[in-house]
């Protein structure tokens, strides 16, 4: 039994709410579809980048560990103390379907391509590891941007999907049931009234 008062006013109100809900449902569904489309593109790129980073970073990391093993700790730290290039990152946020996501732009200052240390006290593994890492930096930053974007989009898509489902399977059917209930009740009252009038007319006609 729906808990609404079967009045004409309530019926008008419900009908208006149903129209709004249906419109909102359609809009949210379109938004969700577009977000999923973008997400699919991004997640593919995310996986490519991660595959690449995992393969190449491991190489660089083991290079550092190897060179660390053959050099003394002070010499090792001294070699890396002064970066050969300044890595600057321009970080801002952009909006994808009104989800704010980060946007990074790597700005590597002019560098001479030289290593930040002399060759005397360092091992060759270190040179290679530094070179590898330098090459890898833009990929790492892109991975950071895309992975964060994917996480944010995924959370948002989940939220929107829940809203769409709540509208589609709970709110809209409930309102339709209420509207049906009120219409039937009003019709029933109408019929009751009509029958009563006809009966009254018969009674009065008999008396005269």
């Amino acid at each position: 039994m729906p808990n609404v008062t079967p009045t004409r006013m309530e019926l008008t109100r419900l009908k208006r709410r149903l129209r709004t809900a249906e419109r909102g449902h359609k809009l949210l569904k379109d938004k969700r579809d577009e977000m999923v489309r973008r997400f699919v593109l991004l997640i593919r790129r995310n996986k490519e980048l991660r595959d690449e980073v995992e393969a190449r970073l491991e190489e660089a990391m083991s290079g550092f560990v190897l060179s660390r093993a053959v050099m003394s700790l002070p010499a090792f730290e001294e070699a890396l103390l002064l970066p050969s290039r300044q890595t600057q990152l321009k970080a801002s946020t952009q909006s994808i379907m009104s989800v704010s996501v980060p946007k990074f732009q790597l700005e590597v200052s002019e560098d001479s391509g030289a290593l930040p240390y002399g060759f005397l006290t360092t091992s060759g593994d270190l040179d290679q590891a530094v070179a590898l890492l330098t090459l890898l930096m833009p990929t790492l930053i892109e991975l950071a941007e895309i992975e964060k974007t994917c996480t944010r989009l995924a959370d948002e898509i989940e939220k929107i999907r829940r809203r769409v489902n709540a509208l589609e399977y709970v709110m809209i059917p409930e309102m339709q049931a209420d509207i049906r209930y009120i219409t039937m009740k009003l019709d029933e009252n109408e019929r009751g009234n009509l029958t009563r009038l006809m009966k009254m007319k018969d009674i009065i006609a008999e008396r005269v």
Partner: protein
Amino acid sequence: MPDIAIIGARDAVIGFKAVGVAVYPAETPAEARPLIHQLCQERSTGGVAVLFVTEELYQASAETINTYKDNPLPAIIPIPGSQGSVGIGMAIIRANMEKAIGADILFGERR
């Protein structure tokens, strides 16, 4: 103010110094947690834009990291440590995909 920072075991991450990344060595999750909090502040008060964390530490301090996941910045990204990848990064991609699409569309061929 550094823009990019990395947290991880000293020997594995120290090389990032050479490419201009701020290095914060941490061997245990207990050491990493305060660093994460410190680096995830607002940009104006000493936070960074991108924070790389080695996978072992990322996994162990997931709770700390999750408190920052609703902010667009910083992007906290797990990277493989010197031991190689243990699959945390891929697990995140998969979780995101299942959350958003409800199905596995990238890793299907592997199973």
